């Protein structure tokens, strides 16, 4: 089912890129989310004070909360990787919440966005593993005993591909399912505010799915950083 009316797409039609905007709404709305996040961050750090207040306060609570949560699970050596994790978390949370506003299409409702986020995180897991362990990173995939190594290697490789699939499909399925339910309820009983309870659930689901993505990314990072079995 096609989205009826999307504001940013209409805006792009006005400036002449209507064909591109209709074919790829998730790209257009990704740009919109990027602009929103950059403007919010710029507003928050315009005047940095020792005793924060207002937007700076909110952002400090958010960022330090995520950082403490991450360091609690990965240990001190995970601190340099915090910016990537926090960026992915804020981006996914904003994308998900965008779907609750009528007339906006959440970029995470397309498998392209979620697959790109999942691929980034999983490839970075391997980068971390190679950086911390060098060539001995392969021992992570070989298991505890040497005579089971070929079997364990295949199982671990499949497991790592399954991580990419599960991360992307979990996020995509949640948000697309939510958008489908909203669309159907609008068709059935839109005049009676029927989609409202689903939208309330949607706020919870949006934040929770971003948090689950964050948690799983942190667990994968710490798994690559620790010693092999």
């Amino acid at each position, binding site marked *: 089912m096609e989205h009826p009316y999307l504001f940013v797409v209409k805006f792009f039609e006005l400036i002449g890129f209507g064909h591109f905007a209709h074919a790829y709404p998730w790209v257009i709305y990704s740009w919109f989310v990027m602009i929103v996040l950059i403007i919010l961050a710029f507003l928050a750090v315009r005047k940095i004070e020792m005793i924060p207040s207002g937007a700076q306060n909110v952002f400090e609570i958010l960022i330090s909360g995520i950082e403490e949560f991450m360091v609690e699970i990965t240990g001190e050596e995970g601190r340099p990787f915090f910016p990537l994790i926090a960026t992915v978390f804020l981006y996914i949370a904003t994308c998900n919440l965008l779907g609750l506003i009528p007339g906006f299409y959440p970029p995470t409702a397309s498998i392209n966005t979620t697959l790109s986020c999942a691929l980034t995180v999983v490839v970075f897991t391997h980068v971390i593993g190679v950086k911390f362990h060098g060539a001995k990173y392969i021992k992570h995939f070989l298991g505890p005993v040497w005579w089971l190594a070929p079997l364990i290697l295949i199982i671990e490789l499949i497991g790592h591909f399954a991580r990419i699939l599960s991360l992307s499909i*979990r996020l995509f*399925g*949640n948000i697309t399912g939510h958008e489908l339910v909203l669309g159907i309820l609008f068709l059935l009983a839109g005049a009676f505010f029927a989609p409202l309870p689903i939208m309330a659930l949607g706020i919870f689901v949006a934040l929770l799915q971003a948090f689950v993505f964050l948690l799983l990314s942190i667990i994968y990072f710490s798994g690559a950083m620790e010693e092999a079995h």
Partner: protein
Amino acid sequence: MEGMTIQTQALQFFIACVTAAGFGIAIAAFGCGIAQGIGLRSAVEGIARNPESSGKVTVTMIIGLALIESLCIYALVVALILIFAHPQAASIAALFAHGG
């Protein structure tokens, strides 16, 4: 099954796919409900046993419920693929466009 045109066979295939999608997501939701109920029971027992750990237990329970729910979401994605993004959708649509 002689006497049936290719359009009828294609339509029956599509009907079978949609029925499978309906049953698939129903069975997945059934399993997901039981699993989340068991997890929830353990969490509530933990809180009843030790009310001070309520914060940590609740957070762990929510994370566990989200991960169990994702299994049901995988089944939902397969059901959506069967209904909307059917692998043979293009050729079946072509059948109905030409013949008929």
